[in-house]
């Protein structure tokens, strides 16, 4: 019995929304980053779901690329976090406001 693709997609949307809420709510840079990862994964889930429903593999290829991208993003993002932490000694996103207005 096939999984209703709508449910898959709703799950994806839910995860995406949770990711968005998390990014907006959390102040820890790393956790915010994690939430962004969650958003990416939500997109991935949607792609997989579509791929399955449409019977086309392209979606999976895209997911493959996205995973690679996520890895790359993680590398750079965490490097940035480290650099920032070195100079500012904080991971609080709300203290990142040297520049404003």
């Amino acid at each position, binding site marked *: 019995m096939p999984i209703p693709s709508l449910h898959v*997609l709703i799950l994806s949307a839910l995860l*995406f929304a949770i*990711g968005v809420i998390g*990014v907006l709510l959390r102040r820890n*840079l790393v956790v*915010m*980053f994690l939430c*962004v990862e969650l*958003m*990416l994964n*939500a*997109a991935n889930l*949607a*792609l997989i*779901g*579509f791929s399955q*429903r*449409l019977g*086309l593999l*392209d*979606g999976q*290829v*895209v997911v493959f*690329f*996205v995973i690679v*991208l996520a890895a*790359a*993003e993680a590398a*750079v*993002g965490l*490097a*940035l*976090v480290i*650099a*920032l932490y*070195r*100079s*500012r000694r904080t991971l609080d*996103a709300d203290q*990142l406001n*040297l*520049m*404003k*207005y």
Partner: protein
Amino acid sequence: MNELFIPAILPEIILCAAGVLIMVAEPFLGRYGRAAGAALAVAGLAGSAAAVLLTPRTPVDLLFHGMVTLDLFGAYCRLLFAAIGVLMALGAAAYLRREELPHGEFHALLLFATAGMNFMVTGADLVMTFVGLEILSIATYVLAGFRRRDPRSNESGMKYFFMGAFSSAILLYGIALIYGAAGSTNYGAVRRFMAGFSNLSELPLMLALGIGLVVVGFSFKVAAAPFHVWTPDVYEGAPTPVTAFMSVGPKAAGFAALVRILFQLVPPDQPVWTQLLLVSAVLTMLVGNLGAIPQRNIKRLLAYSSIAHAGYLLIGLVTASATGLAAMLFYFAAYLLMNIGAFAVVALVSGPGETRVAIDDYRGLGFRQPVLSFPLTVCLVSLAGIPATAGFIGKFFLFSAAVERELYTLVIIAILNSLVSVYYYLRVVVVMFMQEPGEPAAVEIPAAAGAVIVACSLLIIVFGLFPSSLLQVSGNAILNLLGR
């Protein structure tokens, strides 16, 4: 023709090869490393430009299984990016030395970013465009945080990264939706899919939403309101040459990608996004220009100005006409000259550690450093859109396109915005020339940076007075894109 038509991606290959070469060669070159890095970068960029020029134009847009397309539009943008790269490589060398930044990495990243931009504009498939965008983005995140001992640079990189990653996710979701609705990510395929619907309101909501989210993703890149919020902070904190690059390269690439999406992915005769873009254009202009008024920091000022210019450029998209889009293409070129010129001056004046970035630090620069002040004035005047500069020609055609579409309200708003912009650009000129000079700020002008500055200002005037060739090319590029 072979689908794996290598010349189609030769420019990118050259760029990447050059990038890798720089990284590899740098440790072996010792004290020549700096010069060699820049030279290699320039060579790579020049090579890519040459490759673009030498590649035969083919009408086929299914190269690499429909991943890239070879058209005039792409060629034009790639040449533009090469030019940006060259100007950056030349202009930044002295800055890198002064700030003791790793130049090899800088140049390599610059080249890779350029390659990424190239993919963005030549991509005929959302996947390709997305990958290009990510290459560009990641390189730019790094560049923004390049002065890693400087908390401002850290912050800039971090903010850019978060905003970028967030909007990438949205973009990606949009791609997913398009894929789901149309069954493909290929522009041509989606366009054909859409062409099947005679009435637009029958379009699957999911597809429309997907396109909307993709537009959001690129709007972020071009700093269109309300996705512009990152721009001032990031521009202010990033190393000045990087700011210069960000303000022209990714912006142009983002616009080019938007053009492709709005006029190749979406059938060009269905301008469904007009109102949305119109609102965005108006907002962007207002936010950019009004926000710039109270600025005291020149980098931040230019950041707001770049937001405003995104607004002007959006007019081209709103009109969805050959004139408007061609004007936009022309404006890319003009804009890159004026912004790089201006930022090159800012980079020089800012001094070690970028301490002199307040507008008041330009006091008395006017007659003391004419090689800096006059080109900067030319750039600012051009940004303000005053005639005899390339900026004017660009604006002129953008406004013309809007009038052609009878978007009078938009034009009125745009001209009022121009007026506001004149005010804050002039303020810099006022400080430079008209206020009593403060402490002497003797700025040493390295040859390469000086050449970039002078070349930019001269070209601004040249293209302001004799814009024909560039206009012709951009016009053709757009006609080619729209398939007319």
